[in-house]
């Protein structure tokens, strides 16, 4: 009988081995595919089980977490939600994430391996670290100046530090409070429907996701192309351009708002914003030359991340001469985001070198120890340094003697360019008011800030909308805030 008892015991051992092997199969070898099964709620529950890390401005979080006491436990809260919405985006349990909330989600939710002190051990335990923080380059005072400058009018502001590419302000107006859509349930879906249905499009990030015809501010790009290709060698010399200018191959004449543009110098054309001169110069530079320059400024690049995706600004790659003429003054199909135009101003201010704009300076773990640090990168050499110097001189001239006097700051070297962009069928829409500028304080080795402002307020009096009148004062307030320490 002993022999059979031993065999029966062997059978029991076999059962044990089968159980252990099966347990290893489910818990180790199939674990990943089971974890990833869309019907498995654990990832979602785990994601909201701990407080989300914060997005930091000026050393202080502009986000928070609220314990909802529900299965998806922590919901996102926002301090000054509408002010920072174009930067933070939203982190919604129902609708996912956008902008920095999306780009830095791994850090904020605690899954980024950089947060783990022992990544391999983390891989084995598959544990989640406390949420890390994303420290932005935004400066609260600059952001607030831009937001209050727009004052609820439709529009956007982008401000960057030319020498590094740090984005100091990113404002879109009208805005919304992302906290309304943080959680789940009826109130959130109602708020989502209301925000998306609103004609003022509060959830549209106008600073980096909306393109506008840049109008006359684009003349800075055309001037850079003219100088770099040596179509113009002396900015003070007459350009041999007629007034009015008949668009090549057509009978359409291009008018000027300003006077004295016939045969004007490039310097004068920029100061008073001559359409004829700049259109003709663009045609003289030619399709290839213009395209080369605009691409070095960042146009036609849909790969730009700050780390949020930036919509591509566009300049057509094949055009007839008359279309090229119109494009050279920022009309026809030319479109740019406010951030793109801030980059144009920044490249001029920074001696022609365009730095990659960025929003997240560093990420840290929950204790504040640095997990990753951004180091500024050059995007392109947008123009020759000598061209940049000449453009700086011309932009200062605009603010001191030309259309941009509203941007002047006493005691500070400020360069600017106004723009009033026609749009709509037969240009019947209310024009967009543009202003791009930069400020360089005497004694500083680097320019402090480059700004682009666009105001698209449909309720304003048409005559009142001009870059110098509507947008320049906002740019001045933003530059002042950036200069103040």
């Amino acid at each position, binding site marked *: 009988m*002993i022999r059979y008892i031993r065999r029966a015991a062997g059978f*029991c051992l076999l059962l*044990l081995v089968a*159980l252990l092997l099966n347990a290893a199969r489910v*818990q180790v070898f199939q*674990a990943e595919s089971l*974890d990833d099964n869309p*019907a498995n709620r654990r990832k979602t529950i785990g994601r909201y089980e701990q407080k989300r890390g914060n997005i930091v401005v000026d050393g202080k979080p502009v986000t928070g977490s609220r314990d909802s006491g529900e299965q998806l436990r922590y919901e996102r809260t926002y301090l000054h939600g509408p002010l920072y919405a174009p930067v933070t985006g939203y982190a919604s349990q129902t609708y996912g994430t956008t902008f920095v909330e999306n780009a830095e989600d791994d850090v904020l939710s605690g899954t980024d391996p950089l947060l783990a002190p022992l990544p391999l051990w983390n891989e084995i335990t598959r544990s989640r670290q406390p949420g890390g923080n994303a420290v932005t380059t935004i400066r609260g005072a600059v952001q607030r100046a831009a937001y209050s400058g727009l004052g609820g009018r439709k529009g956007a502001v982008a401000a960057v530090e030319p020498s590094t590419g740090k984005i100091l302000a990113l404002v879109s107006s009208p805005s919304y409070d992302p906290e309304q859509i943080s959680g789940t349930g009826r109130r959130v879906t109602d708020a989502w429907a209301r925000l998306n249905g609103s004609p003022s499009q509060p959830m549209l990030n106008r600073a980096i996701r909306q393109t506008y015809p840049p109008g006359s501010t684009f003349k800075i790009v055309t001037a850079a192309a003219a100088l770099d290709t040596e179509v113009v060698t002396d900015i003070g010399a007459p350009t041999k351009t007629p007034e009015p200018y008949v668009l090549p191959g057509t009978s359409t004449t291009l008018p000027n708002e300003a006077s004295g543009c016939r045969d004007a110098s490039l310097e004068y054309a920029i100061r008073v914003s001559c359409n004829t001169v700049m259109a003709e110069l663009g045609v003289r530079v030619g399709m290839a030359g213009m395209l080369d320059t605009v691409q070095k400024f960042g146009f036609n690049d849909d790969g730009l991340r700050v780390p949020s995706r930036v919509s591509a600004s566009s300049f057509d790659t094949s055009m007839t001469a008359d279309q090229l003429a119109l494009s050279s003054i920022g009309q026809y199909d030319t479109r740019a985001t406010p951030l793109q135009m801030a980059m144009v101003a920044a490249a001029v201010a920074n001696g022609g070198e365009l730095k990659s704009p960025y929003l997240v300076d560093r990420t840290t773990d929950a204790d504040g120890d640095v997990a990753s640090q951004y180091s500024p990168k050059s995007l392109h050499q947008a123009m020759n340094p000598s061209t940049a110097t000449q453009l700086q001189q011309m932009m200062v001239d605009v603010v001191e003697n030309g259309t941009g006097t509203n941007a002047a700051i006493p005691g500070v070297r400020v360069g600017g360019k106004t723009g009033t962009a026609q749009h709509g069928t037969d240009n019947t829409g209310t024009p967009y008011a543009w202003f791009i500028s930069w400020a360089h304080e005497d004694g500083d080795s680097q320019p402090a800030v480059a700004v682009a402002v666009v105001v698209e307020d449909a309720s304003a009096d048409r005559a009142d909308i001009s870059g110098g009148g509507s947008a320049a004062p906002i740019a001045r307030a933003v530059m002042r805030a950036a200069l103040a320490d």
Partner: protein
Amino acid sequence: MTATTVDAPPPEVRLPKRRGVEFSLLVGAVLIAVFGYIDVGLTKNGAVPPDAAGYGAGLGVLALLAHLAVRFRAPYADPLLLPIAVLLNGLGLVLIYRLDLETPKDQAAPTQLIWSTLGVALFIGVVVLLRDHRVLQRYAYLSVAAALVLMTVPIFFPAINGAKIWIRVGGFSFQPGEFAKILLAVFFAAYLAANRNALAYTGRKIWKLQLPTGRVLGPIVAIWLLSVGVLVLERDLGTSLLFFGLFVILLYVATGRTGWIAVGLLLAAVGAFVVGSLEPHVHSRVQDWLHPFASIDAGQGPGQLAQSLFAFAAGGMLGAGLGAGQSVLIGFAAKSDFILATAGEELGLSGLTAIFLLYALLVARGYRAGLALRDPFGRLLSIGLASILALQVFVIAGGVMGLIPLTGMAMPFLAQGGSSVVTNWIIVALLMRVSDSARRPQPEHVETGVIAPIVEVDQ
């Protein structure tokens, strides 16, 4: 032989009783459970739970009382059995307590502690009152009669969750089939011990298979048919599988005939196939096993088995930690049939392996007692009781982990369920009793007037 050895008194073999070892292990088992409560509280609420002291003290007192009963009435009993039972029962209480935190309206841990108390009381009762396991042999036919009654009673009660295995009186539900397990083990052991020679050596021979006479085989076949009957009437695949497995193992151990296993497996396969394809409740279980994600693909969300697999997967190697899992997503059977998923999720493969090894140790100790005993009834009884544990663990663990079709059964000691806890405590008590006999020093002289125990000669 030399004269000296004849004259010298036989060397006294003093087997160690190991009660001190048992006591130390018990302290460890209770401490592990107490740490479990504290861990759950710290994870869920960041504080030591106020009722941890109550559960810990309750478990400690139960362990101490059981230990004292063993110390005085079964001093030679195996020192591992009681601590393993206390540890598993304690872990079960921790897991149920932990799941209770997710279901504030449905508190199962307090009830489970009451049932555990009753179980330990019965354990003490068996250890104290049953002086010799051989007494049970006399009640073989009474046992099988009682088992049949217990198994048939639930047929007259309404089905709960598709299976007619409960008696519900007031707020109390009760699974009489659980107790029938022990009674059947006693009957099988007694019957086979008495008839094993007849089963092994008589009757006609067909090809290589030696068939026993119908008179000997009849009652056993009747029991098998009964187990299928129970399955069909009560829709209880698990219990039927358990009875059948128990029967085949004991038959094999008693007769040594491999042919019995072949016949047993054949009959089981036929029975399982017929019932699995005809009986809708069982059929759906088989379908779930074959396609655990079918409901997800159909857009109806994960079924219980899929949720259980998700839970095990979430545990991985080291587990989420007590209180940090989400196995409550499994739903209504999370504390009973699927308790192992919580263990798998929160303790991981490592914790689950430890639990399996605890069961294996329990089973191994039962087998060991069987090997050391001299009377066939005791041997078969201890093998039978140990096999009940082994089969039950395999059937339920294999079921919730997708190895075999799921059957509604309780994980011994771990799962919520009064009848199950009480039954398993009685099983451990009987194993204590047989191990005490197995390890007790043999009397040197057979007293006159007492029939000498049959010393078995192995074939």
